[in-house]
């Protein structure tokens, strides 16, 4: 309701010709803020290692020893929600093969991609490039933070073999 009233308000203003009020809002000449990364990186090889943390809630993740119990929990979620598109080898299925993923990507990037793929595809240059290659967007499988962390552990375990 609020949003609807707002639009009526704006249009009413427009009709009344009180356009100068817009100036009092401060940011009237600025482009609307976006979650766009500030520098447009050019990604040419999506398989190359990257230090990017991606875009999203994860900015600083500390890793310890691989936790086998967590990896087991991660496997269960992975089988249901990820294997439709990803293999653990380097073979591309619908999405990229995930062998070596934890060596190529930061834990933050992986967790951001798993939990919020829409934002990553929109705002992270590497995720964007992957989408351009694959065309099917990575599905948001509504994976919780805990589940995502367990999946990361499972992927680390896979890469340690």
């Amino acid at each position, binding site marked *: 309701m609020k949003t609807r009233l707002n*639009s009526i308000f*704006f249009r009413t203003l*427009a009709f009344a010709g009180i356009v100068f009020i817009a100036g009092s809002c401060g940011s009237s000449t600025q482009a609307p803020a976006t979650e766009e990364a500030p520098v447009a990186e050019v990604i040419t090889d999506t398989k190359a290692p990257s230090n990017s943390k991606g875009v999203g809630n994860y900015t600083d993740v500390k890793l310890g020893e691989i936790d086998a119990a967590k990896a087991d929990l991660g496997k269960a979620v992975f089988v249901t*929600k990820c294997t439709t598109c990803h293999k653990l080898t380097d073979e591309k299925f619908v999405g990229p093969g995930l062998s070596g993923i934890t060596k190529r990507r930061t834990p933050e990037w992986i967790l951001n991609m798993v939990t919020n793929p829409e934002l990553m595809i929109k705002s992270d240059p590497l995720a964007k490039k992957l989408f351009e290659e694959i065309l099917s967007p990575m599905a948001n499988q509504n994976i919780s933070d805990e589940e995502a962390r367990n999946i990361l552990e499972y992927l680390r375990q896979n890469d340690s073999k």
Partner: protein
Amino acid sequence: MKKARFFLVSAVLFALLAGTLSSCKPKKVGGLISGDAAQKVYVAPGELDEFYLFTSGGFNGQLAVYGLPSGRMLKNIPVFSQDPMSGWGYTEETKPMLNTSFGYIPWDDSHHPELSKTNGEDDGRWIFINGNNTPRIARIDLTTFRTAEIIELPNVGGNHASPFCTENTEYVVGNSRFSLPLAGKDDVPINSYEENFKGAATFIKVDPTNGEMSIAFQIIVPGFNYDLAHAGKGVSKDWMFFTTYNSEQAHSLLEVNASQNDKDFVMAVNWKKAEEMIAQGKGKKIPARYMHNKYDENSHSATSTEENEVTIIMAEDMPGLIYYMPCPKSPHGCDVTPDGRYIAASGKLAATIPVFSFEKMLKAIENKAFEGQVATIPVLKYEEVLAGEVPQTGLGPLHTEFDDKGFAYTSFFVSSEIVKWDVEKRVVVDRAPTYYSIGHLCVPGGDSKKPSGKYVIALNKITKDRYLPTGPELTQSAQLFDISGEKMTLLLDFPTIGEPHYAQAIPAEKIIKNSKKFYKIEDNTNPFVAKSEAEAKVVRNGNRVDVYMIAIRSHLNPDNIEGIRVGDEVYFHITNLEQDWDVPHGFAVKGARNSELLVMPGETQTLKWNPDRPGMFPFYCTDFCSALHQEMQGYARVSPAGSNVPLTFSGGANAAE
């Protein structure tokens, strides 16, 4: 034309300003809204409506959902009728929902949506709707907008006075528009109507935790035509009021023969007392066969259970349970004011609206102010229960709803208008023409204790020249009026699906917050679910072939199946593995003689297929899901009966390993 120009100008100006102004939130907007109708119904692209409007589909048997004030249609919920678009009534999981004691029935006539109530207010949990023809009541879950339950009503003919609910949804009711002899005693001459035909005021208990319905009792009442009902509220909350016509007890040419008496009745039922009588064991169990169908949200499957008896009480043997209030000329609507003090009933053939006083009714009962009786049921004296009549209203009053300022809005079918009147003073204060032939009308919350005073919606039967012609059959329509001022102002006409027989509206915020986005795959208990790619398989058991297939953007697995034979019974169980909002997948196979499937994220649905010829049969996703949707396909090879082709299946590189 003028309107179109307005939209164009406003859209351009809005577009120019929206970007620059988006950070500027006005604090007060009310005073700036002009009287312009277009502005009041314009919901800009990307913005949301303020109310949900649920309109019955009448003879289409469904329930349609619109946004207000825009009148934009959002969804058509399949209820009593098959829906090939979603597979409702075609899939193995949903077929039991349309089962009845007469077998599978793909259609009904749905009339009155009724929102569930808590403390007399619409609570947004469920919406009930009646099926007239094969008497049923359905409950739709408003977290999923899906029909969750359908219960059949025995001993009822034409379940029209239904499914209105009590103040805390303790009960929803049904009653016979066509009185009938009781089941098992119904092979009698039609002209024994007076002796043998009865109504059945049916009280269906609603479980407050999960909404599940069960028939608590039926009160067997004299054989009239029971038309509409409404529960009391507040002071009158223990009572349910039904209108009746045909107190003449005609059984032929009712058009003439049921219009003889000067007055018919409003029947007042003390349901609280009935509840006590049942608790005291005064009810009698009689055989009655009816079906009770439930849809389980975890197994994504329905079950249909046969019930074999019902508890009845005979109204004439239970003094104090029921009273008749005389009401002029074939009353139709029966509507209780938000405070529960008055009951407005509308005689279809009358020119005035009688308003009954609940307080006077109790007094008349106490003083035994009776003018006669029907069977042993007392008929109260009209003058003793009447608060007053609203004079000079119009022609053919039908239904009344209320606002939050003490006004009532009554629809007039014959004179095609809405009349606004003052409940306490009982005088007409405004009238507005409708286009054309209004039936029911709806004020958001208008039958509850807390109506909104913003809009009234007219539900019209005839549109003639209001829309582009579409051959002999024209759309029916709804019209939105602003009732926030003294005068009703027409804002918008919009066409509807089927007959918008009755509608209820509710603030969107009461529903949005509980709206489900997808079904959790972990919770899926369908026996044929495939919870991951690894569980995809094809299993033969005799001539039955079960295909456990998964769907995710943008493939099906398995997508190559061989070894099916002519004469097999093939079940495609499709599980949508997506776990995100708004990503259903469809499924169709060439030559399937039922429908497609539309499978929600996390859900499993099953299409049965009887291949009747050898050949190569493509199947594919029907709901455009991604850039590679057109790649989401597969083949089923059907070999002749008795063929030796082994049963094999695969799904891309994954299954080839």
